[in-house]
């Protein structure tokens, strides 16, 4: 396969297979499951090929593809990969097969719709990570919306409609203004150079005027429009209220993708677009975002602590973790940014694993309430071990991945913003509190409920879904350099460090 088609292949494989599956008969669920799994594995292989061809020493976009699309408007089909997108593409490609394996049994109704929605969603996510044209980025960004709406709304829990509509409205509320901002950015570039373009590399050269105040500063307004879209996606406190609903009501596979990958698009967008395109506005907004980040860290942890529903607890823990990532991004040093990027991957692995494991007991007992469990360690030893690994990864035990990310963020941010780091560090402690208390109540308390005595342990399929996550948790924990080295030059280029 020629190199210049590789990124397209990565992006389009899931979506094209999904569209082909659309014409298969409704009854062929077995075929649909297998084909979708194979498509996601093929995507993973292609992503691995891209990794092998990637040169970490080179900071600019690689494996670039550029095709004309709407030349008179300056829109092109432009894909490119730097270290930042590579890491996130690998995460996405890794999680997708896990989603299909985990929902092999738990999704038995309307299988075709489910796998098609999942595959289209993967195309949207991968495209958004790899697009180097702002119009194309926006198309992929919005492409994720519809499949996710269906995944939550059709296969979700009891309050799925409310959660699905809320998800759509929140997401669109941010992204529509971003569309105007993208158009305006292109307009500014045209005013300065005389050519129409939506290419990312061109936009980097557009110096958006700073102006005075907020309402008269194009740069501040554009920054705000982009940041709103991304902040809702992350989500940054106080825009997080859609997240607990969406995560809790989504089926297990949807939660894994939502937490594992979709939230990352918010932080990716902040890093990819807000930081280099609007540097002065970024600087001016830093105190606000650092404040919101630490509020999110502490608030998310406290609310997670109070939850009675395991899935909701994990959902609120996302607010905390994403707060750390935002802190790392806005602290602005190379170390903290690298930490934030690594933490994006870590959060995808650990939260993905936790949602996966919560789904395992939900499939057996059809409840997620912590009080309905207790003493599971005696009946489900394998499951207990897996849950413990995911928990320890989530709370940042040294030797596992979470520790490296949080450590880099905090040490990187400390020289510039010690006060924020001090508050954020309490979040680390609180994280241990709510996660370990969850483990105690679910696994170690007395086995009081009769129905729990006969729960079967992890099946081989569930173990298979979890194993790769555990593998990477340990790998990143022991040797984070493998991944940090991929993105370092790209991060330096983006933040000018």
């Amino acid at each position, binding site marked *: 396969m020629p190199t210049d088609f590789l990124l397209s292949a990565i992006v389009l494989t899931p979506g094209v297979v999904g569209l082909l599956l659309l014409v298969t008969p*409704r009854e062929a669920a077995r075929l649909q499951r297998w084909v979708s799994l194979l498509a996601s594995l093929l995507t993973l292989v292609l992503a691995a090929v891209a990794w092998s061809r990637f040169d970490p020493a080179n900071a600019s976009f690689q494996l670039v593809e550029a095709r*004309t*699309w*709407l*030349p*008179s*408007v300056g829109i092109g089909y432009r894909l490119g990969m730097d270290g930042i997108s590579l890491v996130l593409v690998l995460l996405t490609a890794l999680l997708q097969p896990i989603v299909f394996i985990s929902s092999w049994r738990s999704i038995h109704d*309307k299988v075709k*719709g489910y796998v098609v929605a999942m595959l289209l969603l993967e195309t949207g996510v991968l495209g958004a990570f790899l697009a180097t044209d702002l*119009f194309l980025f*926006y*198309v992929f960004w*919005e*492409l994720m*919306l*519809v499949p996710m*709406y*269906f995944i939550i*709304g*059709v296969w979700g829990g009891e309050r*799925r*409609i409310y959660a*699905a*509509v809320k998800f*759509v*409205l929140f997401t*669109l*509320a941010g992204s*529509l*203004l971003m*569309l*105007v901002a993208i*158009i*305006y950015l*292109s*307009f500014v570039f*045209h005013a300065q150079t005389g050519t129409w373009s939506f290419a990312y590399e061109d936009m980097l050269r557009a110096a958006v005027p700073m102006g005075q105040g907020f309402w008269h500063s194009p740069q501040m307004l554009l920054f705000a429009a982009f940041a709103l879209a991304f902040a809702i996606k992350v989500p940054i406190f106080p825009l997080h209220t859609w997240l607990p609903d969406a995560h809790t009501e989504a089926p297990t596979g949807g939660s894994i993708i939502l937490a594992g990958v979709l939230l990352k698009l918010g932080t990716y967008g902040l890093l990819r677009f807000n930081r280099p395109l609007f540097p002065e506005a970024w600087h001016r907004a830093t105190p606000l975002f650092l404040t919101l980040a630490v509020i999110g860290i502490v608030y998310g942890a406290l609310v997670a602590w109070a939850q009675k529903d395991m899935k909701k607890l994990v959902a609120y823990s996302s607010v905390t973790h994403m707060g750390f990532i935002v802190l790392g991004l806005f602290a602005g040093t190379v170390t903290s940014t690298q930490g934030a990027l690594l933490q994006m991957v870590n959060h995808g692995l650990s939260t993905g694993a936790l949602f996966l494991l919560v789904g395992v007991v939900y499939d057996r007992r059809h409840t997620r309430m912590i009080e309905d469990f207790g003493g599971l360690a005696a009946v489900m030893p394998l499951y207990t071990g897996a849950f413990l690994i995911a928990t320890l990864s989530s709370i940042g035990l040294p030797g596992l991945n979470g520790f490296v990310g949080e450590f880099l963020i905090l040490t990187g941010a400390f020289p510039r913003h010690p006060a924020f780091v001090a508050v954020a560090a309490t979040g680390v402690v609180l994280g241990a509190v709510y996660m370990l208390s969850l483990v105690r109540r679910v696994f170690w308390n007395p086995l009081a409920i009769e129905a729990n005595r006969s729960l079967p342990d992890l099946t081989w399929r569930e173990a298979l879904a979890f194993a790769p996550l555990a593998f990477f948790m340990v790998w990143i924990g022991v040797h984070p350099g493998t991944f940090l080295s991929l993105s370092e030059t790209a991060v330096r280029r983006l933040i000018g460090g």
Partner: protein
Amino acid sequence: MNPSDLAAVAPELLLVVMGAVLVLADAFVPALRPRFGAVAGASAVAAAILRWTGPLPGAVWSGALVVDPLARFVDSYILAAVVLVAVIAGPYLARTAASYGEFYGLLLFSAVGAMVLAKADSLLVVFIGLELLSISLYVLNAFHRDSGVSLEAGWKYLVVGAFASALLLFGIALLYGATGTFSLAATARVVAERPLAGNPLVLAGLALALAGFGFKLALVPFHAWAPDVYQGSPTPVTAFLSVVPKGAMLVTLARVVAALAPQALTPKWLPLLATIAVASQVLGNLVAIAQRDVKRMLAYSGIAHMGYALVGVVAFGFDGLVGVLVYLAAYTVMNIAAFAVVSAFSESEDEPHLITDLAGQGWRRPFLSFTLALAMFSLAGIPPTVGFVAKFLVFRAAVNQGLAWLAVVGVLASFVSVFFYVRVVYYLYMKPLPQRAPAYLEPWPVRVAAGACALAIVGLGIFPSWLLNAAETAAKTLLR
């Protein structure tokens, strides 16, 4: 008259002849009625072929009509709409016991009216085209002659339409009084000599003409007729009514604005048009939320969409015109897709087309439901659909003209609209199917029409360059 004039209007002539043939055949050979739909569709296809292979001489008939790439662009989507409507109308009319041959004849006549309107270079021809279009539509609206709702729709459209025509005619009369000519170009020269402010006759004439246009486009505050007429008309007619008159009228408006030179209009008129655009978007989308009938909802959504398209006219310039043209083409396919599915889903024309009746259809009739969902997402402007491309282009035109606020208002209005478009999808896919089974299953031509629209929505959404190039060629002629 010379032969080249005739050649330039060959498509129109063909359609008029075929329309007359169909009306006569209905009277004399009623046995052929089942074939009428195919004949009408084939005539429209033939007319489109003639238009694309024939000459584009520019002004013909002593300057009454302009046959230029812009006219060709508009004709293309008018004729596409005719073909689609002819396909979905056959089964529909058979099912609702209204298979009269006049239907297709009138359809072709109204199409000719729209085509003339979009080519008019003289105010009088604008009026003639509009009347031919409208009078044919009055009959089509009331085509269910035993149904009170349908008669009400025809009656309302007639009264409001006559009122709008009267306003337009009065405006034309005043303009003629002030300038002594019907020709747009000559009017423009007179206007250029004397500024509008000092010329009350021209001012009043333009205002009245604008009001007449506003009625036909169903723009706020001239929109009140739309919901009742949309709801009551036979659904294929609603599909036609919702795209063809608006498409032709908006192009006429663009021709008037272009002829009068936007500079002459700038100080007062563009803010006025911008206000109308914003009011239409806001009111259309907000009121659509409250609707329980799909057709009424689409009526209000149509009001909002003309508001978006008008943004392109306000921004004007090359970008704005391209935006308007792409918008009209996009609106044609997505709206006809929606109405085609609604007509296939409705069991009886006497009952309202409630959104709640769509519950669970997504899993029972996957293909049509998929098309309807696609049309909804396209109307909401979510990529990768042609509706998104169209919105993007008009908003871009606004931003490039320094009217970023119009784009911001526009996206906020489309944010509101997402709510009711997505609600349709919610009923289709996320509500359980009610126990009663649908009594009627659509025949294959309806599926073909719906499939063609669905393909166009996605195809032109992902590969819009063909549409964009055509629109750019068309827009260039107007700005020359």
